[in-house]
């Protein structure tokens, strides 16, 4: 199977007021096309930072990120932008909806970047919003929505261009268990039937159990890893991982 994402000894150091924060400290990661990977870890362990590096939004301090074997550091701004528009869908931990656009427009606008024709944009936006249960709220502005509803708009937007890679930062963080399950099943579904790849950050082990593989991140390093595919007792495997996280 081909690798869609590969990182080689990637580090990210933030300098703030002279104090260096090493958020990511040398991560080697390989994700296959069509895989569903969950990254778990305590707050501040560098999960979001890693996801931003993979999503071509941030530049690593050292090391290299490859997207389908192309090193991101070699791409110019236009190519990276195009990658973000067409190949990568990002679900932000902080949602990042555009406040002046309503729910429909928030999803529709990124399809322009993906180069879709108007009629297709309309049709696809409507069906995506139906899928995430927001068909009735299409004309509402984000500031009229609950946290969970905004998160679902963010999910719909990330899926808008049917990207090869979906990067989800805590996509169920604000959702009740029923709606959360719906979103997780949706992510699982796009992996299974459309061969899209999902990398999901979460600190919810129940959410992680939807993945094919779970990585534990701590202090910017990968501390453990377990495949869940074909495992009957996912609970036990996850508990073992949990101990790694707490160790």
């Amino acid at each position, binding site marked *: 199977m081909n690798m869609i994402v590969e990182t080689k000894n990637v580090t990210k150091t933030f300098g703030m007021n002279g104090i260096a924060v090493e958020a990511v400290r040398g991560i080697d990661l390989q994700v296959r096309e069509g895989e569903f990977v969950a990254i778990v870890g305590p707050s501040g362990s560098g999960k*979001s930072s890693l996801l*931003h590096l993979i*999503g071509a*939004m*941030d530049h690593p301090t050292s090391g290299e990120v490859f997207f389908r074997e192309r090193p991101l550091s070699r791409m110019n*701004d*236009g190519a990276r*932008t*195009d990658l*973000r*528009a*067409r190949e990568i869908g*990002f679900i*932000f931990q*902080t949602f*990042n909806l*555009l*406040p*002046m*656009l309503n729910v429909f*427009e928030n999803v529709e*606008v*990124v399809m*322009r*970047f*993906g180069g879709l024709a108007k009629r297709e944009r309309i049709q696809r936006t409507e069906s995506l919003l139906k899928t995430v249960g927001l068909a009735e709220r299409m004309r509402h502005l984000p500031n009229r929505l609950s946290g969970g509803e905004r998160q679902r708009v963010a999910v719909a*937007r990330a899926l808008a*261009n049917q990207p090869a890679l979906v990067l989800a930062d805590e996509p169920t963080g604000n959702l009740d268990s029923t709606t959360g399950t719906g979103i997780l099943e949706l992510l699982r579904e796009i992996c299974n039937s459309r061969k899209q790849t999902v990398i999901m950050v979460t600190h919810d082990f129940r959410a992680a159990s939807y993945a094919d593989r779970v990585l534990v991140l701590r202090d910017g390093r990968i501390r453990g890893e377990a495949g869940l595919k074909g495992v009957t007792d996912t609970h036990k495997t996850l508990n073992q991982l949990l101990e790694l996280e707490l160790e």
Partner: protein
Amino acid sequence: MLLDLAWKNIWRRKLRSLLTILGVASAVQLYLMVHGVMGTYTGEINGQVNAFAGRIVIQQQVESGGGKSDLTSSTSSLMEETAEALLATGGIDRAASSALLFVPIARALMPYIPPAVVAVGLEPGHEAAYLGGLKAASGRLTLEEPDEVILGQGAAEYYRSENNGDPVGIRSTIPVGGRTLKVVGILGDAPQLFANAVIMPLPTAQAIFDRPGTVTSVILTVQNTGAVETVKSSIQAGFSGLTVSTQDDMLRSASSILDAMNSFMSIIETSILTVAVIVVMIVVIVSVMEARREIGTLRAVGAARWRIFTMVAGQSIVLSMMGTLVALPIALFFVQWGMSDYLSSVTGVLQVWWQILVTAVGVGLAASILPAWQAVRVDPLESLRYE
């Protein structure tokens, strides 16, 4: 394109956008007025010059000698004998040539524009020297009795107040310097030099204004237009101390005046437009500063830099266009009702609609360069930095 986002950004800050539009509107309005004045002025001077095709105007030498002869100069003074000798020059059409006396009745509001109302004395039977090519709106363009007068439309308007506010027309009488003159003709549309004229027989004018035996100028019409320069040379050879102006000379002198005026006015116009550009620029810069996180988000979800550019430039152009749209009716109002004597007609302003459009887009584009440059440099990461 993200032009709908540009529109939404404008709509989001209604009061601010409204104030910007009003600011742009007053600048553009001012610009249009200055432009209109300049247009009227140019048209006026060209109209005058054109009216003198094939004619030669002779005045006493102007002191500065700079060639800026003023056709209606009342300071020029020629003896009647000199005028007669001039009128005897060979190669001229005597019927369409005359000695004239120009005396201002009311001063003009601007320099180089003919007096608001000017008395013109000319030899009866030789009206064509001055009025050749013009048509009457009513009555006749010939003077038969000593107390008859022909009025240009501007002059007729001027005497309205003397006529109990009623329109002055043929058979009306007007008081000029203690005499009562009978209006026998009203000129049709004509350049201001003619529109403002109160035309009467030369002896009458000499008597009223106490200039016995003198005239201010002589206008000769040459029989053969091609011979203008020959006639001019022969006059210059035979007489000294005279300024002899052909249509070409007038054209030269007019364009030197117009050039000076134009460069002065274009400084004013540029300053006005610069104010408009800066107003829009400040507002769009502030709006980009406020929207950095959203611009970062747009970049993060795949908006290319050129799309961000269209959003910012679009916002800037829309503000400038709306300002222009507001300015147009105001400018037209002033042109139509406020300053109709000194500005071209409404159609004059509208004829340059495409110039107005280009100006509006130009102001918007110029204003957007700096903020757009700031906006396209916003990094996707900026979408993550705020909370």
